[in-house]
């Protein structure tokens, strides 16, 4: 009797477990799994966004078109340039800033708050501010002219190919350097004090302490931040979209997300946009897999 009651109690609990989980599960089936399978499926078809005609099967046609299209390679290259160009300075700057902040005894929190504050801004607002700064009469030219003691030199922040790419990278680094600094500060803070003290007693100076104690123990955090930053950079859209809307030449900053958006919404070519989405997905899948593997080994043992 008692066994029976317990059994039914377990069953009841299991039912409640399902009840609590079900809404989210249904949501993810409809709004995550279905769309990604649909994107994969549509990438083998020719389909116009607006026409009511059924999609036409074209096999690998969309992919082979993309691999031959210079516009696609251009946007792949733009994305790669942006990703590498933004994530290397992000990584180096945030690591240096975090190490310096942790070497101070005062104002640690305040400096972190200040550096983090642009991340609280929406990316559209960030792009808007920087558009005015990069204006030919704006602060960017004024600043460089003061620095180099020149007058009236225009650096073409929003018109020459290289400078335009640099401008989008500057906006991104400005917005996220504080965020990654805070991640590094957390990583450095997790290293036990006893290790630093032991090093100092052994006669190490602060530089040696950083180089031989902090830096090696930060390796998992560094790897994690690199992958996180790379994934973030691959998804960049707002800055490039707003800059091109404001009249900057699109080609140098036509990143892959912008290309997907334009292919689907302006050209109505769902098949080609889906094929690009799948390629982006595969690259990010690889990086996310890397991130998960790293976060698993992130719990370092200090023994």
């Amino acid at each position: 009797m008692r066994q029976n009651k317990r059994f039914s109690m377990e069953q009841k609990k299991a039912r409640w477990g399902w009840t609590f989980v079900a809404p989210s599960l249904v949501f993810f089936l409809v709004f995550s799994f279905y769309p990604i399978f649909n994107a994969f499926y549509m990438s083998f078809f020719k389909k116009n966004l607006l026409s009511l005609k059924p999609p036409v099967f074209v096999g690998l046609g969309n992919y082979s078109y993309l691999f031959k299209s210079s516009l696609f390679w251009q946007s792949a290259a733009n994305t790669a340039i942006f990703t590498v160009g933004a994530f290397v300075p992000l990584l180096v700057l945030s690591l240096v800033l975090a190490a310096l902040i942790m070497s101070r005894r005062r104002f640690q929190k305040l400096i972190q708050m200040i550096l983090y504050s642009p991340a609280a801004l929406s990316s559209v607002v960030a792009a808007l501010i920087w558009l005015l700064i990069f204006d030919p009469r704006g602060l960017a030219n004024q600043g460089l002219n003061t620095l180099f003691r020149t007058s009236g030199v225009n650096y073409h922040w929003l018109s020459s190919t290289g400078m335009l790419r640099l401008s989008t990278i500057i906006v991104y680094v400005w917005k996220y350097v504080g965020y990654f600094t805070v991640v590094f500060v957390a990583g450095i803070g997790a290293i036990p004090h006893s290790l630093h003290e032991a090093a100092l007693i052994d006669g190490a100076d602060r530089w040696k302490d950083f180089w031989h104690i902090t830096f090696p123990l930060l390796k998992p955090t560094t790897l994690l931040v690199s992958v996180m930053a790379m994934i973030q950079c691959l998804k960049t859209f707002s800055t490039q979209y707003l800059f091109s809307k404001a009249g900057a030449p699109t080609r140098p900053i036509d990143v892959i997300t912008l290309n997907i958006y334009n292919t689907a919404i302006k050209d109505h070519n769902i098949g080609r946009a889906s094929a690009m989405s799948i390629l982006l997905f595969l690259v990010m899948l690889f990086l996310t897999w890397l991130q998960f593997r790293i976060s698993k080994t992130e719990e370092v043992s200090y023994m």
Partner: protein
Amino acid sequence: MNAAKTKSSPARRLADILIWLFLIGACALVLIPLVFMFTSSVMPAIDIMKLPYPWISDHIHWQNFWNGLRGPEGTFIFLRNILNSLVVALSVTATTVLLSSMSGYGLAKFQFKGRNTVFMLIMATMMIPFEAIMIPLYMVVMRMRLQDSYAGLIVPFLTSAFGVFLMRQFLLTFPDEVLDAARIDGASEPAIFTHVVLPNVGPAIATLAVLTFRSQWDSLLWPLLVVQSEEMKTIPLYITKFMAETHSDEGIMMAIAAMASLPMFILFLTMSKYFISREGLYSTTKG
């Protein structure tokens, strides 16, 4: 510590000064664009484009804020767009918090067949970037005839895998005895969830709420796809349109930017510990 102190030398003091200069310089560089936004939001456009930039204007030009709210056609559509952003961000935050904590609770505190499979499935969706599924999602929303509506803006973000993960991790350590005691007292399962579980997971909910609100307030790509009419635009879309119009007044532009950022700055200053929390840092949210 003592060993370090006794070694204090001129070289070390110089290094200290250099480190402070570097940190202060970095903070200044980060703050300049923000200061620029606030100072030029109260300047007439002619002053903003003056060479060199006058950091402090002779008189405060508050009209920018009024004109920004009024809009070029005098329709006050920006107010409606602010309202839209608030409706969408608050709805998404509410449903995400509710559904994520329900599912996190189910996964953490109940034994049932297939529980691990469900958890792995939900975690797997974190690997699907929003950018890769936005076009099929758009077609789903079109088929449901939800384009250009609040529902269309809200429905694809009702819950988040990161939220489920966060709440599950947090609830794993929730004491079973408390739940069992409530069951023995005759409380129903939904009552236990709303009266015992939810009031005790405040910090996790605050983190999730802040991050969800932030990502929705910032969202550009999805509204760009779904919204067609001026009335349904959110703040990022309004700013995009305003900026693309040639000869927009720079002062008004910055006033709009300042108004759009104000809620986030208030949230950031009052809830900074939830922004700069370990969980918050590793989130990968949609959009």
